[in-house]
Structures are given as structure tokens and as C-alpha cells.
């Protein structure tokens, strides 16, 4: 991969912001992993930490999701979007100081939010459980970052935009809109009764579909051709895929309310739109996999690309499974079971995080000029893959068991239904432990590259000076 010098100046301008967001993202990833492990421990032994009110199962579960989505997801989105957009715009990142300032506020807001949850101020709205006092700080810091990202995009050299830019920009802009809608409907002009649930569930699911998902898709659209050195196969479909997601995803997310105390049209339209989602899923997977399979050897040999393709395959599979599970006949069995965990982890872990890992491994050496040891990357890849597969398999089979047994009214709840699911909780506990270990390796390596020890840096500087 030859680099010309404009790319190098762009990378250098992105260095500060990228390093800041990435290292915070890593910290949150570890915190989320710790929470995930604690929650899994509580499901295998209800007495674990039970006398401590800070750590009830419900609080830990929710903190994990929030640390993962806003902490890891948010920071990773900032890091990846800034770098990819700067590269595609051929424009330097400006205002790094403001980016970092806003990033600090964002991270502080989440920290206080999580402490608030643990201290017993959870709000009960899906993905908005953090006390509402931190919402303004989150929104303002987010808007500052959005503004600076748009500045990068506006100063682009090439007027023509391509798929990665659409997806990333849309995600960046959708988040504040979703956030404001939810804030308005839940706090400013609060809805009554189950309208609250419709709105908070719509928000929580849309975060994944309209924020995490497009960024990961955008990153894949950028990385696959960049690493393989070829254009996306059937690229003309991408625009269709993009607008399908934009138009369908906001509708499809409410099918989880099937059968519940809401007007019937709400879950019904959700189901119809979920089925229609096969189109954008097909487009994305054709684009990615048709391109990648032309040169499988290269995919296998490039670690960043291996992560990305794992992510895109996972996206395809999980989305199709999601479509099947939204069919009313299947939903009747799987609704309310731990299949929900399967969907969540598949999407945020198997898909989003894996692509972000790939993006980081691709970008980090270019930005810092230092490489992560190949053995560490490879270890990370295999432990992550194994952990994710173990986790998802346990939730999938466990969830089906859960649903099928629950559907037989003669079986007592605790002693038959839940005790049959318990072995799967044990497996997820090991999977989370493995993943935590894998993430630790990732974060330690990233940190070592971002903050090298002073002697190593001296060494590199000397070498650079000599070169």
C-alpha cells in the first residue's frame, strides 16, 4: 500500500482526535465487558454480589448496554467517522481541540449517567436509562462533534460523494434527531401509558439500526475496496440499499411489541417492514461479498479485512435471522426470550464491533506510524470469533429452548423452564470471560501504540530523523 503525502498530512491531522476517541472507546469496551461478565455471573449464581445494592442484576444489565452503545459505540463512531470522512474528503481534520473538549464532556456525561443508574436513578426507558440530567450534556457535546465532522465533509476536494460518506453522514445526523424525538416525547411533552413504551422501544432499536449499523456499513464500504484495491462489485445497487435502509428501518424496529397492549397496527407494520428489509440486506451483502470473494486469499491474509468480512457476514446472517424471527408465528415462541440477547449481541458485537476492530487495525498504523504485533491481532481475532460464536450459539439455542418450554403451560416456570435454560447461561458466562480477555488484548495493544513508552518513541523518532 503506497501512501502519497496528502494522505499522510490528513492522517497526521486526524491523529489527536482519533487517538483520543479510540482510547476512550477502548476503556468503555473493557468496562462493558466487565459488566457483561458480572451480569452473567449473577444469572448463574443469584447470590453473587447480592447484598450490594449498587450491583443488582437489572442495574448491571442496563449499565452494560449503555456503556457499550454510548461509551464504546459512540467513541468508536467518532473515531472511525472522522478518519474515514477526512480521508474521503481529502481534507484535514480541524478543531481537534474542540473535538477533544466535546469528547471529554460526552465521556463525563456517560460516566455520571452510569453512576446515576447504579445509584438508583434509572429511568426505565429503553437505552435512555441514564438519568435525564445528563441528556443535555450528551446532546450538546454530540452536536459539537457533528458540527466539526460536517466541517470536514464540507471542505472536501471532490464534490462527488460515495457510499461510505452517505452511510456515515446519515448516522451522524440521525442520532441527534432520534435523541430529540425521544426526549420530547418522554420528558418535555410526555406521552401517557403504553405510548411511552412504543416511543422508547422505537428509540432504543433505532439507535442500533440507524446509528451503529450505518456507520459499520459505511466503514465496510470504505475498507473493502481500499484494502483489496478493487471497486465494489455492482456498486450501482448501493444507493438503492441506502435509501431502503433509510426508509424501512425506522418502521421495522417496532415488531417486538407483537401481541402487547398497543394498537395492533404498530407491530403489524413493524413486521411488514422487517420482511421488506431483505432488500437492503441483500444489496449490502452482494456488494460486500461479491467483491470480497473475488480475492479470498487476500481477505484471509489481511487481518483488518478478515475482521470486516466477519462483520459483514454476521450482518447478513443476523439480519436474515431477524427477519425470520419477526414473522408472527415465530415471534409467538421467541418473543421475550433470551433470543433478544442474541439479536443485541449479534448486531453490536458480531457486526458493529468486528468492523470497527478491522477499521482500527487498518487505520492505526497509518495514523500513528506504529504497528500492532501480528500475533496480538491474530490472537484477538480468534478469541473474538470463538467468543462471539459461542455466545450467539448459546443465546440462540437457549432462546429457542426458553420459548418452546415457556409455551407449554403445564411446565412450572422456575423448576422446568428456567432451569432448562440455565446451562446456556453458564456457557454465556464463559463466552463473556473469553471476550473480556480478547478485548483486553485489543485495548492494551491499541493503548501501547497510541501511548508508546518514552524509550520506544525516542527510538522511532531517531529512525524517522535518520530516514
Amino acid at each position: 500500500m503506497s501512501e502519497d503525502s496528502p494522505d499522510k498530512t490528513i492522517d497526521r491531522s486526524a491523529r489527536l482526535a482519533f487517538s483520543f476517541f479510540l482510547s476512550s472507546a477502548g476503556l468503555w469496551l473493557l468496562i462493558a465487558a466487565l459488566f457483561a461478565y458480572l451480569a452473567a455471573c449473577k444469572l448463574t449464581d443469584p447470590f453473587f454480589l447480592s447484598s450490594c445494592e449498587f450491583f443488582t442484576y437489572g442495574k448491571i444489565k442496563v449499565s452494560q448496554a449503555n456503556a457499550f452503545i454510548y461509551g464504546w459505540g459512540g467513541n468508536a463512531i467518532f473515531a472511525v467517522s472522522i478518519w474515514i470522512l477526512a480521508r474521503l474528503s481529502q481534507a484535514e481534520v480541524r478543531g481537534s481541540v474542540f473535538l477533544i473538549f466535546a469528547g471529554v464532556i460526552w465521556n463525563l456525561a456517560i460516566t455520571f449517567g452510569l453512576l446515576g443508574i447504579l445509584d438508583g436513578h434509572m429511568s426505565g426507558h429503553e437505552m435512555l436509562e441514564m438519568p435525564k440530567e445528563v441528556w443535555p450534556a450528551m446532546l450538546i457535546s454530540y452536536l459539537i462533534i457533528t458540527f466539526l465532522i460536517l466541517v470536514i465533509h464540507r471542505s472536501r476536494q471532490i464534490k462527488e460523494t460515495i457510499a461510505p460518506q452517505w452511510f456515515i453522514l446519515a448516522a451522524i445526523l440521525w442520532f441527534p434527531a432520534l435523541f430529540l424525538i425521544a426526549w420530547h416525547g418522554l420528558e418535555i411533552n410526555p406521552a401517557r401509558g403504553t405510548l411511552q413504551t412504543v416511543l422508547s422501544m422505537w428509540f432504543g432499536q433505532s439507535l442500533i439500526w440507524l446509528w451503529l449499523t450505518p456507520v459499520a456499513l459505511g466503514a465496510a464500504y470504505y475498507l473493502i475496496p481500499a484494502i483489496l484495491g478493487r471497486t465494489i462489485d455492482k456498486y450501482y445497487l448501493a444507493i438503492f440499499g441506502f435509501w431502503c435502509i433509510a426508509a424501512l428501518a425506522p418502521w421495522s424496529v417496532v415488531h417486538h411489541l407483537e401481541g402487547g397492549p398497543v394498537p395492533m397496527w404498530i407491530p403489524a407494520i413493524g413486521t411488514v417492514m422487517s420482511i421488506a428489509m431483505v432488500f437492503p440486506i441483500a444489496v449490502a451483502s452482494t456488494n460486500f461479498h461479491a467483491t470480497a470473494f473475488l480475492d479470498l486469499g487476500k481477505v484471509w491474509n489481511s487481518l483488518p479485512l478478515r475482521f470486516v468480512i466477519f462483520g459483514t457476514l454476521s450482518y447478513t446472517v443476523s439480519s436474515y435471522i431477524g427477519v425470520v424471527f419477526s414473522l408472527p408465528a415465530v415471534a409467538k415462541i421467541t418473543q421475550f426470550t433470551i433470543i433478544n440477547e442474541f439479536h443485541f449481541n449479534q448486531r453490536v458485537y458480531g457486526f458493529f464491533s468486528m468492523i470497527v476492530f478491522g477499521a482500527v487495525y487498518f487505520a492505526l498504523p497509518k495514523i500513528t506510524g506504529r504497528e500492532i504485533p501480528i500475533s496480538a491481532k491474530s490472537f484477538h481475532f480468534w478469541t473474538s470469533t470463538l467468543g462471539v460464536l459461542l455466545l450467539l450459539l448459546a443465546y440462540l439455542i437457549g432462546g429457542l429452548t426458553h420459548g418452546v418450554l415457556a409455551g407449554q403451560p403445564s411446565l412450572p416456570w422456575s423448576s422446568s423452564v428456567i432451569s432448562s435454560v440455565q446451562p446456556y447461561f453458564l456457557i454465556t458466562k464463559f463466552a463473556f470471560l473469553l471476550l473480556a480477555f480478547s478485548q483486553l488484548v485489543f485495548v492494551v495493544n491499541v493503548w501501547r501504540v497510541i501511548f508508546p513508552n518514552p524509550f520506544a518513541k525516542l527510538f522511532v523518532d531517531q529512525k524517522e530523523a535518520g530516514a
Partner: protein
Amino acid sequence: MNNLAKFSLGIFLTLGIAWLAFVVGARSQYGDLSPTSESLNEDGSVPVDADLYPFDLSGMAKQGAEEYAALGCVSCHTQQVRRVEAGFDVDRGWGKRPSAPRDYVLQEHVLLGNSRIGPDLANLGLRGYTDQWLHQHLFEPQTLFPSSLCPPSPFLYNEIKDPTPSDLEITSQDNTKDIRHIRPLVRANRLIAYLQSLKQDYELPEVSFVEDDEVVEETELTEEVASAQVSSAPKWLQDQIDAGKEVYMKAAAGGGMCFTCHQVNGEGLAGQFPPLAGSDWVLGDKDRLIKISMYGLMGEIEVNGVKYNNVMAPPGIPPGSLTDDQIANVLTYIRNDWGNSASAVTSDEVATVRKSLNGRAPMQMFTAAELSPDVK
């Protein structure tokens, strides 16, 4: 696609249409539902004198809902009975009918939930559990169901070393642990009041009970549950509550006359007489209650976060004349009516406090500052 303004317009438009449907549309469709009667007149009007459902939660249950939300019980328990064609909920005896949007219109926290590691709780209040049973379950579910995954909440209870008869005795189902005695904190009482208030036991014009043989199964379930209960209110406690109610209601020599100020329903009068129903004073520290029942209370106090500044002369006719027994009974009564549920007060406890106050001038009313503020 190349013009940022047009692009933004496009993506906000697609989002906006969904918002119009789910937020604006759904709101105008059923955002103004209000309580109604079980059935309507032919012209669609509500019959006069009919009870309106759902009922509003008591103040105490509302506080309990906050505890429930804050502890995150919703991550394992749903509160919604699905329609018959969409799930097995009615078959499992989790409700007599599917839940309807109207059931939730008065709730501040709508905790439908979407995960069922534990059973649905939309109708927990109909399963016939006593408060004691629920307290034991909240304290440590594993004493009732050894393999239960429901997390224990010992932090909502004080473990008592030298128990009085009113404290809750905890024995485990399989006798593997020593007998323990616990006393609930106010928060536990609130949570139980909330759990007991969860019931959709009325019909609405839009939904009626599901009629079929499943109902039989449901009654069997409740019986099974009833036999699993540790104890229902024992006779001595009921006697004490009855005697206490007499003191509360008697406005002649030897009575307490409490109802004239705090009202028969225990709700007090806004701005003047603080409520006893759901009051953190009543459910809290017993010593404090005993002291004010002997000597009265004056100055600014705070009940459930609301300030009052008035005078309660030493209760009784003549003032300050209530005996140890009477105080024990009336306090036990106010701690166990109107949805309150807290441990009984014994006359021994009253006698101990009286002794400790030996030397205090008669009729010298307490102030809030003088009473230890630790709300137990």
C-alpha cells in the same frame, strides 16, 4: 446525494414519516384514553355510579413503582399479557384477559418490559400472595424456591438479632439455613404495596375475560400457591389491629380521636394534617412514633417530602393519656391499614421508650429536630 442540505432533507424526511406515524399518529389515536367503566351504555356513555377502571395507584404503590424501576426488575419481568393468538400468557394463568392500552394510562412508569426470565407480573396482585410471603420472596426468593434465579434484595431489610413477635421469620424451604428474623425498611414496604397493586381484574369495553377451560387451571395454580405461603396474618396481629382501630376511631374519654385530624381513610388534609397512609413516619422508626404518640409533635416536619408546620397536641382524651397497650395497638393499626404494611408495635416496646423518657415534663411536645432523623 452530493448536496448536503438536500441529502439531510432526504434522510430526515424518511425518519420524520415514521415519527409521524408512531409518535404523532399513535398519540392522536389513543393518547387521551381515560379510565372507564367495565361496560358502557348502549349509546356509548359511561353509566352513572359505575366504578371507573383502572384505579389510580395508592401513593405508596407509586413510590414502590419507582423502586421497581430503579432496581431494574423490568430486565427480567414483563408486565403485559399478550393477546391469545400471540402467545401463551393467558394459558399460563398470568392474566384473565389480554392487557389493553387503557390499563396503563394512569401509571407514571410504564414497565412493560421485553424479557421474561421471571414470570409476567401484570397480575401479581391477583395470585393471592400475602405481604409476608412477598417480603420473604423479596428478601431471599431461594428460601421459597431453592433454584430460583430471582435475585435476593437483603439490602431492603434489617436483620434482627433479638426479634420481637412482629418481625418476619425466615426459614428456608429445605432447612439448610438457620432461622433468621428480618424487619422491612420503608422501601420494601413500598415495593410490596406496588406489587400487590398489580392487577387487571376488571373488564373494559374493549376487552373481556378469556372464557374457557383454562380458567380452571388458573384457580388450581392459585391454590397451589396458597399452600406454598408461609403464613397469613396471624390471629394475635389481627386482634391488635382491631383494638387499634377502636382507639383511632374513638372520640370519647379513653379514645385517641386520631381520625378527626388524619381522617378515616388515613389521607389527612392537604396543608394541615399529614397523611398516615404511605407515610414514611408511620412506616419508619417505631421509637419516634411512640414518642409522638405520648407527647405530641410540633414545628416543621416533612412527610414523604411534603412539609407541614402544625401542632399535634399529645393525643388522647384527656391529652397524653393513652396507655402503653393503647399506643401499641393504635400504632400497629396505622402501620397495617390503607395499604400500609409494617411490623407490629408491642406494649413492651412502648414501656421501654416511656422509661427512657422518664423525667421529661408532661405535655412537652417533640419537634422534628429533637427526634433522631434516621428513618429506618
